[in-house]
């Protein structure tokens, strides 16, 4: 990654409190709080991932996106009384190790046993370009998954409008978004790992 990222030291405990508040509001369906949570989270993930993927700077942004999608898909496994750093760290670490293991068995042996509170210590807001095009992966999904995501998540139509437009039922639209994002995560895994 180009050294254009600015890393600013944060007080991790403050960040934890702020992100936790945003995330919990997001879990209750507050989209704006959730968007701010994901954006700030990606800044912290970027530094965390870059430190551990120093051999593959090109992969950093892809893995940040993979982590973000994985955390979104598994957000129901977060227990609200649990430290957010622990949850974020466990998932990010799992994804880093998964990638390193796929790249080379030897690298996986250097599994860094690091302190989980360090996840929120620094943040980099400037992203390098992702190599993998999420939009292109989205295009590969079947219509029953792709259309709900495109209409609801990208174009901002309501579930009801999307249902009318596509002839799907409202519950099929909701299920389509849910399953579609899972399928997208699976494509990120398999697509990224064969290279």
């Amino acid at each position: 990654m180009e050294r254009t990222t600015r890393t600013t030291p944060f007080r991790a405990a403050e960040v934890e409190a702020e992100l936790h508040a945003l995330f919990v509001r997001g879990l209750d369906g507050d989209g704006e709080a959730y968007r701010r949570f994901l954006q700030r989270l990606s800044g912290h993930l970027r530094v965390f991932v870059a430190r551990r993927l120093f051999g593959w700077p090109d992969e950093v942004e892809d893995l940040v996106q993979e982590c973000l999608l994985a955390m979104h898909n598994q957000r129901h496994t977060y227990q609200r009384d649990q430290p957010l750093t622990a949850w974020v760290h466990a998932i990010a670490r799992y994804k880093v190790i998964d990638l390193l293991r796929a790249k080379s068995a030897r690298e996986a042996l250097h599994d860094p046993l690091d302190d989980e509170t360090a996840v929120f210590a620094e943040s980099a807001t400037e992203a390098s370009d992702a190599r993998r095009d999420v939009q292109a992966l989205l295009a590969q999904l079947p219509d029953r998954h792709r259309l709900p995501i495109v209409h609801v998540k990208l174009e901002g139509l309501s579930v009801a409008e999307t249902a009318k437009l596509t002839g799907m039922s409202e519950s099929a639209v909701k299920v389509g978004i849910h399953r579609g994002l899972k399928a997208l995560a699976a494509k990120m895994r398999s697509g990224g790992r064969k290279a």
Partner: protein
Amino acid sequence: MKTDDLADLLAAQVAPAPRRAASRRLGLALALGLPAAAAIMLVDYGVRRDLVQAMLWPMFWVKLLFPACIGIAGYVMVQRLAHPGVRVRRAWLGAVLPVLAVWVLAAVGWWRMPDEARMPALMGQTWRTCVWSIGLMALPVFVAVLAALRTLAPTRPAAAGAAAGALAGGAGAAVYALHCPELTAPFLAVWYVLGIALPVAAGALIGPRLLRW
């Protein structure tokens, strides 16, 4: 797509996340798996005819409760391993201590038995089938719990698979205890423990493949 755009996409009209999802999904898995295990026991094996009388013997309760403890510890471990960043802590002791207790019980029994009684106490009449029967009765819970785990987020898949095996093996052995005619500690110490170890080993082996996400 830029990462900020992905964040926008994910946050757009986001649905509220279900609460206590893991407990409900694992609960559902048990609600499906346990009756299936009981059905296999009732239909293929049958409850032991002297069940009411057997309930008066302490060994019957040892045979029922030691696997049940392992099953409960397995549930607690699965629960914790399904949540990223939640530590297992001492829950594994709940699976290990009952085994140690049965081994101690078996060693004491073995030591106090006359020589000629030892092999019959160890092998019983059903040693050939015990392990496989427990494995068979563990299967429905095993499959259901792994299916539930696939919708959760185990970051230690081998451990999560093994814990699912402990849950299923403990449950399966407790169900099988209602049929099983054996009542000696050495028999439990070997064949029941092997029967429970079978799904634990299977879970540890297939976990990394099956539970990847």
